[in-house]
């Protein structure tokens, strides 16, 4: 942002033989090539060199800063977890006609049985439960509880009946042979799918050899499903399933938890089954996906984020203005004092800058609380009565006071460095032309110091928008910012999707404000120093 940008040295100057124009065509350099070419080449080399010089920093920033942020922001729309954990269920739900009026039909539950069995082995069902619990209360324990039950579902009646009817069906080696034949696989789609999943599960999660293990119930359940559908592939043992004793998977799920037959729960799973979701962003602006899939407002007693965004904005502005108000006179004093006393004052400005943030914030607690130093002094002086001590902390006032103190150096330093460059002679010149002190200041000095105000304001405003430690400590309930909620969702609720969405919105807001500022004030008008 300094204006000391220099034009790069033009090396090819030496190659210019005086710049004569040949009649046949373009101007030629000493080596006979067109001048334009060699100039371009030299410039290219120059650019490449400049690029190579900055590339370590560039790569560092890309790897350590841009990529992680992009990755984090991407979480605000990412939602693969549902379709990855319950792929069969999601596919079956697409076919289902019962929703949203009634719970889905048996095929969906059969698919869920296979999915949940596998998920429980990988222990990914609870993770899915936590994810879906953000959208609907109770899904966390629903998945945890049924994940525990699903291995003990009474589907072994199929297993027993199959093995009784055809003992070869107990043999995993025979199974492997059948499942290598394409006709059988085509004839028994559910079975083939379940078999593949079982083999993968046995090898990956349990690290066993499928050829030596008992085939799980869910494979036989899938086989029953295929055969009951009338499949009869060549080469697979003939088993008549029409006389089989059956069990409803839906009923088993209902037995495990009656919430499984609640259409609302299925609607949530269906709404959040696509790989990408706008749910986190809707949540960030106090909205949600309604039962019919339309965005709608959340209940009034859950709306919080818009309020917090608004509060963050206006309080950051308030903090920035109080920084200007307090910082400007100090910077003025610093820049007009003789160097020696200015340096001493400068140390006083910087001293708090070097003190731990937590220490400074905690010090404000001691000062501002109702039994604190300031209130005690005011009571002692008789300015306020003992019963009506001022509430200076655990509210918005506390946040503004403490944050102003913390951000003040960020305002003073750019102001000071800009003011330092204003020649004192300008003021003398103004006065010699008849201006009084105020006019000279207001018409000459102040306009020259505006770029410093701009730089300090941008610094203070952007820093304060992202602050959360100080508001958390002194802000009570009315003085906390949106960043406090972001921190909460990152470290406490683990709802990183929502945190990412809130962060994205905050970033967009800051960029918009920056753009507006550029349009109104002009970013060229901002100076961090001489």
């Amino acid at each position: 942002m300094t204006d000391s940008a220099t034009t790069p040295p033009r090396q090819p100057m030496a190659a210019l033989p005086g710049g004569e124009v040949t009649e046949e065509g373009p101007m030629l350099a000493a080596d006979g090539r067109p001048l334009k070419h060699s100039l371009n080449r030299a410039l290219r080399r120059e650019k490449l060199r400049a690029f190579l010089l900055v590339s370590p920093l560039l790569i560092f920033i890309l790897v350590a800063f841009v990529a992680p942020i992009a990755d984090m922001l991407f979480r605000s729309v990412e939602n693969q977890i549902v379709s990855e954990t319950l792929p069969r269920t999601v596919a079956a739900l697409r076919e289902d006609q019962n929703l949203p009026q009634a719970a889905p039909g048996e095929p969906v539950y059969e698919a869920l049985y296979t999915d949940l069995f596998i998920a429980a082995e990988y222990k990914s069902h609870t993770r899915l439960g936590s994810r879906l619990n953000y959208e609907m209360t109770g899904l966390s324990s629903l998945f945890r509880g049924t994940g525990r039950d699903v291995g003990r579902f009474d589907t072994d009646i199929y297993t027993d009946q199959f093995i009784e009817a055809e003992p070869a069906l107990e043999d995993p080696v025979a199974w492997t042979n059948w499942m290598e034949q394409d006709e059988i696989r085509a004839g028994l789609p559910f079975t083939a799918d379940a078999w593949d999943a079982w083999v993968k599960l046995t090898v990956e999660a349990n690290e066993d050899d499928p050829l030596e293990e008992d085939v799980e119930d869910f494979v036989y359940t899938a086989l029953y499903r295929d055969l009951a559908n009338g499949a009869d592939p060549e080469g697979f043992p003939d088993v008549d399933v029409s006389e089989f004793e059956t069990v409803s998977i839906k009923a088993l799920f209902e037995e495990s938890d009656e919430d499984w037959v609640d259409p609302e729960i299925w609607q949530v799973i269906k709404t959040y089954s696509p790989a990408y979701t706008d749910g986190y962003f809707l949540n960030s602006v106090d909205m949600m996906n309604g039962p019919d899939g339309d965005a709608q407002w959340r209940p009034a007693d859950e709306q919080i984020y818009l309020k917090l965004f608004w509060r963050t904005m206006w309080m950051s502005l308030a903090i920035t203005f109080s920084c200007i108000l307090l910082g400007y006179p100090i910077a003025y004093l610093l820049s007009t004092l003789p160097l020696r006393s200015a340096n001493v004052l400068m140390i006083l400005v910087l001293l708090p800058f070097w003190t731990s943030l937590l220490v400074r914030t905690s010090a404000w607690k001691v000062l501002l609380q109702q039994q604190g130093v300031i209130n005690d002094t005011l009571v002692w002086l008789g300015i306020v009565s003992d019963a009506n001590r001022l509430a200076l902390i655990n509210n918005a006032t506390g946040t503004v006071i403490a944050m102003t103190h913390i951000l003040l150096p960020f305002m003073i330093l750019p102001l000071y460095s800009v003011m330092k460059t204003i020649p004192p002679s300008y003021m003398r010149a103004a006065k010699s032309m008849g201006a009084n002190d105020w006019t000279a200041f207001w018409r000459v000095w102040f306009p020259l110091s505006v770029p410093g105000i701009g730089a300090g304001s941008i610094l203070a405003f952007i820093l304060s928008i992202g602050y959360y430690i100080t508001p958390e400590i002194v802000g009570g309930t009315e003085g906390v910012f949106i960043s406090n909620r972001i921190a909460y969702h990152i470290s406490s609720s683990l709802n990183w999707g929502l945190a990412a969405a809130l962060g994205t919105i905050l970033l967009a807001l800051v960029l918009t404000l920056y753009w507006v500022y550029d349009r109104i004030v002009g970013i060229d008008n901002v100076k961090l120093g001489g």
Partner: protein
Amino acid sequence: MNITRLLTASTALVATATIAGAESHVEMADEMTIVSWGGAYQESQLKAYVEPYLEQNPGVTVTWDESSAEAVAKLRAQNEAGNVTWDLVDATAADAMRLCDEGLAMEIDPDEDLAPAPDGTPASEDFGEEMLVSDCFIPQIAYSYTFGYRNDVAEWEGREPDDICDVFDLENFPGQRSLEKRPHNNLEWALICDGVAYEDVYDVLETEEGQDRAFAKLDTIKDETIWWSSGADTPQLLADGEVVFGSTYNGRLFSLIVEQDQPVSMMWDTQSYDLDGWIIPEGLDEASLARVKDFLYFATDTQRLADQAKYISYGPARKSSAPLVGQHAELGIDMAPHMPTNPENATNAFVQNYEWWADYRDDLDSKFQAWLAQ
């Protein structure tokens, strides 16, 4: 007599531990990174079992990381990055449950991984179901959220609060209160003081009307409440006379009252139990895991858990440890009366339902925050 028995018991334990260690032929790592809370609590762990363990195993070094407050988020990030650097993490029961749900913590078998009681009772019984709340959780201590109050408030005219509902009684006990800035415990206490029986609290809180009832009760003291987010806040606010009532962990109040001798008293009524313990991160290599298991077997045995109570007023998680709780290591006072699990203190205790909160946390938290912001 007692001491002899103790010694025999602990020798037997050490012997079993050695045998258990000898049985496995896996090399054990010499380094362990233990994650804990810092402060007095970590100190108690250091004194009660880390130092004794290191004495027995001179080649081992322990690195502490004071990250337990963000353990869940950090462990998740480490896991996603495929680089778990922690060997053992101290976590609250609720966090342990979440880590288990997320697949970030390892499931354990109490009877195989933990020492039996000196009388041979298997660990699963010695801890009991009410302590082993998650398959991944190895309990150490029971602590509680409870209230401390100033015992020098002039306006109270000598009345002493002895009922949780006195917190909601601004007439007899005027003054500011401090409550935690999250729904846990506050909603339960509010409902109990609105006339709901202990055993019905969560059933009522499940309903919309029940939640409204709880918030309405909290509304009655909202203007007089400072909301805390760090466990150190309430002791400071009480010491400064900023509040007259405040909830926090009982250990913090113990050090305020007993160690710092402030004019504050403890109110045990309807203290709300919570648990803290270890979890082993998922994905440790064999050597680290062998070392961690060896350490855990030692660190969670009956004597070690009882020893911890010498340094901090939290109740040992094992039933068999309770009779062994002795005196404060420096002050020399009996620690038993200061334990949240002490029968006299526990007459009216409330037990949090972690599984219920795992479901309702997201929902109630947004309602609670919206209510706070109103």
